[in-house]
C-alpha cells in the first residue's frame, strides 16, 4: 500500500465523517449521581456461594459454630 493510497483513504474518511463537536454541553454530575443512587451494590455470586457453603457445613457439623465464633 502506497503513501498516496493512505492519503486517499484518509481524505475519503475525513470527508465521509464530518468533524464532531467535542465540547460537552451540560454537566453530567446529576446524571452520574442518579445512576449511583439507582444501582445498589450487588453481592457477587461467590459471596452467596460462600454463605451457602458455610451454612451447609454448620448444619452438618454444628460444633464448628463454636470454633468459628471463637475465631471471630
Amino acid at each position, binding site marked *: *500500500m502506497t503513501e498516496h*493510497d*493512505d492519503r*486517499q*483513504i*484518509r*481524505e*475519503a*474518511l*475525513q*470527508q*465521509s*465523517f464530518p468533524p*464532531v*463537536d*467535542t*465540547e*460537552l*454541553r*451540560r*454537566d*453530567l*454530575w446529576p*446524571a*452520574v449521581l442518579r*445512576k*449511583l443512587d439507582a*444501582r445498589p451494590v450487588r453481592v457477587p455470586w461467590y459471596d452467596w456461594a460462600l454463605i451457602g457453603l458455610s451454612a451447609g457445613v454448620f448444619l452438618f457439623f454444628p460444633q464448628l459454630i463454636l470454633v468459628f465464633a471463637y475465631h471471630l
Partner: protein
Amino acid sequence: MDLLRRFTLGEISAFETLVRQFQGDIYAWIVRIVRDPGIAEDLTVETLWRIYRARQQFRPDGNFAPWARRIATNLALDHLRRKSPEHSLLADPAGPPPHDPLLQQETWEKIRHAFRRLPAKLQAAATLALIEERPYDEIADALGTSVGAVSLRVFRAVRILRKQLKDIGVRP
C-alpha cells in the same frame, strides 16, 4: 488528604470534583470514537459510574486521566461491537469518481457504511488515527496496547476498507 486518595476511599465529594474536572475530556474522547453526541453523553455517565465502582483498583499515586480514558475507550468499543450496520452494502458497478453532489453524498454514505462494518478495535484505531488524527501513542495508551499494535490495526482497517469499497465499486 489529597483528592485522589479521598476518591479511592469512596468520598463522594472528591468524586464529584473529579467528575467536574474530567467529564469534558472523557466526553470528548468518547464522542470522537462513537461520533454521536447523545450516545457519547450516555457512555460518559456510564464511564464515570464505572470509575467510581472501580475506585479501589486505582492507585492514588497514579495518573487519573489515562486510567479514566481507558475505561471510556472500553465502553466505546463495547458500543461499536453492539452496533452493527442495519443494511448491507449494495453492489454498484465501478465507475469514475462522482462529481454530482448527490452521488458524492451516496459515495460518502457507502464509505461510512463500509467503515462501520470493520471490527470494533480496527474501527476505533482508524477513527482516532485517520479521521481525528490523534497521536499514535495517545491512541495506544487509551486502547491499552502498543504503538506498533495501533499501526497494525490502522493498516488492517485500511486494507479491509479498501477491499470492501472495491467490492461495491466505490473508489475513494
